[in-house]
Structures are given as C-alpha cells and as structure tokens.
C-alpha cells in the first residue's frame, strides 16, 4: 500500500513539473528562436508541446489510477474517493473537486496546444504562429504551475482516519450518468477559447490583424462555442434530472460564469463575418476574443475562490489570488496591446446602412455585449455592495429573468430579420418581399399558441417571434438547398441557420416552461389516486432500499394508470444529508416531474410529493442537439472560396489559409 502510495504522488508531481518546465521552455524557446532566427532551436520547439501533453496525460492518468486503486495516501483521494463509490462515479470523481478539475482543464489545454503545434510545426518561423504558441504555452504553464504549486494536486494526505475521511464525492455528483459528460464537454468549450485568444494576441503583437489569423482560428472558435453550448445545456439537463427543484437554469454564479464567455463568444461568431466580408471591426473582434478568454478565467476565479456562494462552487482559499492575478495580467496585457495597436489596425471603409446584414450583426453585438454586462454585473454586484457598504445582498433569478426577457425577445426579432438582409443596404421593398412568409409563420405560431390557450404578453411575443425567426431561417435553408443541393446544409451561413433553428426551439421551450409550469403538492396514499392537470397519480407503495453507501425510500407512483415512476429520497450514510431524486415522465408536450418531499417517513404509508407539469422541456434538449448539429455543419467548408478576396481586406499569406 505504502509503496504504491508514494509512487502515485511522486509520478504525479514529476509529471506536473516536467509539463511545467516543457511549457516554460516552449514559450521561451519560441521567443528566442524568433528573435535570433535560430532555425535549429525552432525545430526543437514542437517537442516541448508533446512533453507538456505527456505531463498532463500522465498526471491525469496517475490521479485516475490513484482513484481506482483507492490510494488514500493522497490528500485528494481522501477528499473525493471512498471505498464504496461505484466505478463510474469513482472515475468521474476526478473532476468532483478543485484539484482534479484543474487537472482536467490542464489536460484539455495541453491537447489544444499540441494540436495547434502539430498543425503549424512547419510555420513556426511565422511570427503570428510563433506568438500564438507562446501564448498557448504561457497559459499551459500557468495551469501546470497552479496544479503543482498552490493547489498541489498530488499532496500527501495525513494518515487516513476512516471514520471521518474518504467519504467519496458529493452525493449530488454520484447519481447521474451526465456527470461523465457535462464537465469535460464544458471544459472543451471553456478551454477551447484559448486558441482564438492566442491568435488574437499574436495578431496584436505582430500587427497583422488582417484576415490571416481569422482564417487560422475561426473553426477553433466555432468548435469551442459548440462545446460550450452543449456543455451548458447538459448542465441544465443534469440540474433538471438530479437537483429536484424542477428547473434547468438558476442564474447561479457558476452557471453565469459559463454563460458569460458563451455570450461574448456568440457575439464574436457573428461580428467575425463582418470582418471576413467587409474587412471591418478588426479591433472589436479581437476585443471580443480577449473578453471571452478573460471571462473564462474570471469565471473560474469567481467559482473557485469561494468569494461567491454557490451550489456548484468548490471553494479553496489558496487558489483565488493566483487566478485573479492571472486575470489581471491577461486584461492588462491585452488592453495595453489594443491601446498601442488599436488605432493603426482600424480598417477603412464604412457600413452604409443600419438596415443591412452588417447593421444587424452590429445590433446583435450590442445586445450580446449588454447582456454579458448585465450578467456580469448581477453576478458580482453583491461583492460590490459588500465592498462599499459591508452589507450582504443577493441578486437572484427574478432580477436576471426580468432583464433577460426583453433581451431575448429582441434577439429573436433580430434572428427573424437578419438572415434575409443583404450586405450593404436593403430596401423596404426587398424586406417586404423576403419577410412576407416568415412573418406569416410568426402570425401562425401566435395563432396556434392563442388557440391552445397560452396567455401573457411576453411568452406570446416569444412564440410569435420564434415562428417568425424560424420562418426566416427555414427560408434561407430552403433557398440554399434549392441552389446548392446538399451543400445547402453545410458551410457557415447554412450551418448557422440550423443553429438558429436550434436556438429558436430552445427559446420557445424556455418561454413555455418558465411561464406555464404548474406545480402542486399532494400527500398520496395507497389506493387513493389523485388527479391533477388531467393526469392521475396513484401511490403503489413506498419502498425502502439500501446499498453500501446509502439508504433511502422511493415512492412508486403509477401515472395515468400506466407505468410507475419512482421519486426517491436517499440518505448517503457518509454525509447524512437527504438527497431528493426526481422522477420524470418525458413527453413531447409536457413533462411530469415528480419529487418526494424530505418529510416522508421511511416506514410510513403516505408519500408527500410535489408534482410539476412542465411544458415543452424535451424541446430544450432537441434544440440543443440541433445547435450541436448546426455547429458541425457550419464547420464543414461550404462553397469554396479559395482566397478571401474582398478589396478592403488585408493581404494574406496564401499558405496561412485553410486550416
């Protein structure tokens, strides 16, 4: 036991220090080789990326090995491991607390760095590529340093005292398969924005803010965005299936931390099209990428330093100052570079009319930026008040809901108008012509909603504009399919329309489920069915269960005389807290969401339950899948445009095109 124990710790530490050294040497070597023009040094640089990747892989593998072999000599295993965690949740326990989640971050970052290195190893003498890799190496080095030094992921623990240590991961993180997918996918998105950020900084340093760097990174930004989107939606799904409060999104600081880069990233994906087409908004696009990356670091600080209380937070006082310092450095360097280069890099040319494609993209950017500002403000506002007046306040979901509702409606409206707008300038006649059928789609959606009994101005507006925007996106797709055959589904514009359809479905589902959820509490007794909202619920029996790590009770409830559903209350013996687990009957129109109340008596005959009838929830996940599919379609090359030949765009090195 002791031999393996020290082995895991030693190998883990060694892997981290090798990774740290490799990242530092990689960054320094690239700078030196580029300054001195030393070709031999340059050719060795790619080895450092592989070494860093190797360090990260070994670190994660050793930690997993320690988890699987229950090596309780490591402090981290004492924190998240236990003897009776099931295998699946034992593996996912890696990212169930701070140290391991930073290791996961590190692994993904090292993979991105290595892939960028592999794709560009012939072009390291190009300053743009070199500086981008310097940035990647620096960020990687920071995370190696973090997990080696301040966090010390492989710290040896005290002699384990099994009466109080080694309880396993948080009970909420050991009862759903989504724990396996949500964090890695979210991190793929979160960390993925490092790549476009690195190229943006390189563009600023080299002064080459033409379109070359854009071509090199647009697909990275797109995929990072896609992963972030899927990760966020999976988080909502997990919350819905596990937490038992019936909702998917609570505007919690951790959720906001993932939403902030999504907002600025979405803004970037739109405004970058203006740059590609018209050569404009260069500095703005770089600023958006800088904002996106800094917000991921700021979000990590907010959620990992314990300054804001959150259900998801892993607080650890030691890491906060480092992350905040890193955030400060990123912002200072980026702003300094923008201040230095910004004016020279601004593009000539003008946007002719607000009623044009680029005008719509600008409006989109304004709204997304304001949205991000509001979410950030609401998230940190309690800290501001605390700093100024030493008083505790809260900014909760009703605040965010109230402000995001008009924003969402405006965005839906823009999604309806923008796709049909031509570049440069649109006439009213053209709009009247192109928007005619989409507008009637909106009217049709409104009519259907009113017909099925929907009420309230805000949700009705959302349904109407959803129909309108859906009509516009479908129109574009149909036209593209007619013109280009199957290629009408791929490429950025067409894939983007598929993403739009997904967004619209998600928006409609959110509007419906937020506005029309019905909920009631009942005490069910055997043989006495109750009916609610057109469904009947009958308690079949209360059933106690127990396994190595928990005891609990579930209520078998027959719904509509058919299948039984079993909401449960589980007491994890190691933790003592009662964890309610909902049971959900999914349906295309309504989900029936049953939770058992903690007041249930385990040996009783009555089941106090809460029944939610939630409309259209399934469409959140369907819309999410459509968004993911659209992202993949948008990543395929569309109509070949070999060289971006817009007259106002900067000259481009041909070899840099096509990544």
């Amino acid at each position, binding site marked *: 036991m002791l031999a393996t124990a020290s082995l895991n710790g030693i190998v883990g530490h060694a892997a981290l220090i090798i990774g740290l050294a490799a990242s530092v040497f990689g960054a320094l070597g690239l700078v030196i080789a580029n300054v001195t023009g030393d070709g031999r040094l340059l050719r060795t640089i790619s080895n450092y990326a592989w070494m860093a990747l190797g360090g990260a892989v070994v670190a994660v593998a050793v930690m997993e090995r320690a988890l699987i072999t229950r090596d309780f000599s490591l402090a981290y295993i004492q924190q998240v491991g236990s003897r009776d965690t099931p295998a699946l949740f034992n593996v996912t326990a890696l990212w169930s607390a701070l140290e391991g989640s930073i290791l996961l971050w590190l692994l993904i970052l090292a993979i991105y760095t290595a892939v960028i290195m592999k794709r560009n190893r012939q072009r390291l003498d190009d300053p743009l590529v070199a500086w981008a890799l310097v940035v990647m190496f620096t960020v990687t080095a920071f995370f190696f340093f973090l997990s080696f030094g301040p966090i010390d992921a492989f710290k040896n623990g005290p002699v384990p005292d099994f009466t109080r240590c080694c309880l396993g991961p948080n009970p909420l993180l050991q009862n759903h398969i989504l724990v396996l997918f949500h964090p890695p996918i979210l991190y793929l998105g979160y960390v993925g924005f490092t790549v476009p950020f690195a190229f943006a900084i390189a563009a600023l340093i080299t*002064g080459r803010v033409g379109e070359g760097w854009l071509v090199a990174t647009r697909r990275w930004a797109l995929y990072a965005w896609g992963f972030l989107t899927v990760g966020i939606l999976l988080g909502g799904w997990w919350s819905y299936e596990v937490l038992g*409060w*019936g*909702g998917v999104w*609570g505007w*919690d600081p951790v959720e906001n931390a993932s939403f902030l880069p999504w907002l600025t990233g979405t803004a970037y994906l739109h405004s970058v099209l203006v740059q590609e087409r018209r050569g404009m908004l260069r500095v703005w696009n770089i600023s958006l990428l800088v904002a996106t990356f800094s917000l991921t670091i700021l979000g990590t600080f907010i959620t990992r330093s314990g300054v804001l*209380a*959150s*259900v998801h937070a892993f607080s650890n006082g030691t890491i906060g100052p480092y992350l905040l310092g890193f955030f400060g450095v990123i912002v200072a360097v980026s702003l300094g570079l923008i201040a230095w280069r910004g004016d020279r890099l601004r593009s000539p040319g*003008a*946007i*002719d009319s*607000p009623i044009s494609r680029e*005008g719509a993209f*600008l*409006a989109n950017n*304004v709204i997304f*930026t*304001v949205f991000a*500002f*509001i979410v950030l*403000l609401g998230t940190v*506002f*309690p800290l*501001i*008040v605390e700093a100024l*007046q030493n*008083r*505790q*306040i*809260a*900014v*909760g*979901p*009703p*605040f965010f809901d*109230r*402000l995001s509702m008009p924003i969402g409606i405006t965005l839906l409206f823009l999604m309806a108008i923008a796709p049909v707008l031509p570049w440069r300038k649109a006439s009213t006649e053209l709009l*009247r*012509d192109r928007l*005619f059928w989409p*507008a*009637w789609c*909106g*009217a049709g959606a*409104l*009519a259907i*909603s*009113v017909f099925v*009994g*929907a*009420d*309230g*101005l805000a949700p*009705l507006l959302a349904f*109407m504009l959803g129909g309108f925007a859906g009509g516009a996106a479908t129109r574009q797709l149909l036209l593209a399919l007619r013109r280009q055959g199957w290629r009408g589904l791929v490429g950025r514009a067409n894939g983007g329309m598929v993403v739009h359809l997904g967004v619209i479905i998600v928006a409609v589902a959110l509007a419906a489920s937020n506005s029309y959820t019905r909920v009631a509490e009942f005490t069910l007794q055997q043989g006495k069915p109750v009916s609610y909202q057109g469904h009947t619920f009958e308690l079949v029996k209360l059933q106690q269960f127990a396994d190595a790590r928990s005891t609990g009770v579930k209520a078998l409830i027959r719904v509509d005389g058919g299948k039984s559903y079993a909401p449960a209350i589980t007491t994890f013996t190691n933790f003592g807290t009662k964890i*309610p687990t909902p049971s959900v009957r999914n349906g295309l129109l309504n989900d029936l969401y049953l939770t058992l*109340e*903690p*007041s249930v008596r385990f040996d009783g005959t009555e089941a106090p339950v809460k029944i939610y009838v939630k409309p259209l929830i399934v469409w959140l996940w369907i819309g999410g899948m459509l968004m993911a599919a659209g992202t993949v379609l948008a990543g395929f090359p569309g109509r070949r445009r070999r060289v971006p030949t817009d007259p106002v765009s900067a000259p481009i090195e041909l070899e840099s095109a096509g990544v």
Partner: protein
Amino acid sequence: MKRAVKSWPSWVLLVMVVAGLLAVGAARDAAPRSPKERVEDISKRLACPICEGESVFESRNADSDAIRVEIARQVDLGTVSDDQIINFIAQRFGSKVLLVPRATGIDALVWALPAAALVCAVVGLGVAFHRWKLAADTIPDDADRALVADALAADASPDADEP
C-alpha cells in the same frame, strides 16, 4: 400575382391579425391572482436563508417552510401588499434574502447600470453609423487633405502604407 400578395395591404392585414391575437392572449392573463398564486409569487422573490441558490419557493427545508407559512398567514390577512410581506421577511432575515434587489440607495445601481449600458451602446452605435454616413457622403475638400497630410507627416513610421 406574387408581388400583389406581398404588397402593403397584406402586411397591414398581418399586423392587424397579430395585434388582435396578442390582445386576446394578453387579456386572458388579467384574472386576479388566487392566494396560492400570491404565496407562490412572493416566495419566488425570497431566497431561502440557509441554502445557496434556492428560493423559498423551491427550497424544501424547515426554515423555508416556516417562511411560507408566515407569507400565507399575511396573505390571508388580505390587507398587506406583496412588497410589505417581502419587506417584513427581509427586515428579519436581512437583505440577503431579497432575490430582487431594492431600487433604493446603492442597490439601485444594479437596475440603473444596465439601462445606462444599453443607452450608451445604442448611442454609440448611432454615432458610428452617423460617422460612417458622413464618411461615405463627403468628398474630401482641401482642408481634409491638409489634415490627412499633417497626420501622416506627424506619424510617419516605416511600415506605414503610403497612399
């Protein structure tokens, strides 16, 4: 034929249909709230004092139960407004249970700053379009040319592209 269908009269018809439907749908919403709905609305605006990120409405613990009982009691009195009930709870448990921040004192900033940001952004966009329009419309005169020449002379650097 196609032109005619998409002409102004049909758009007017569309607007009328939409306005009518919205009016019908919005009017349905106007029924007075039942006491249960009032308790729901109020408890959604209050945070559970001992949990993180849950409202009194969602939370299942004893404290939230007690607060819900108190809200229901005051709602049944029928003489106090939602805001008064919320204030009553916030006075006792502190303003950290207010999920909707107050609009007084420094707390009002959380409402004012988003509005200010929106106004700034819209004005900024308007200014940008105005300048682009000027740039597109004006033909440079001698004063402009002199200005450009001055700027270039003052800021000449090796990598500048000269016109």
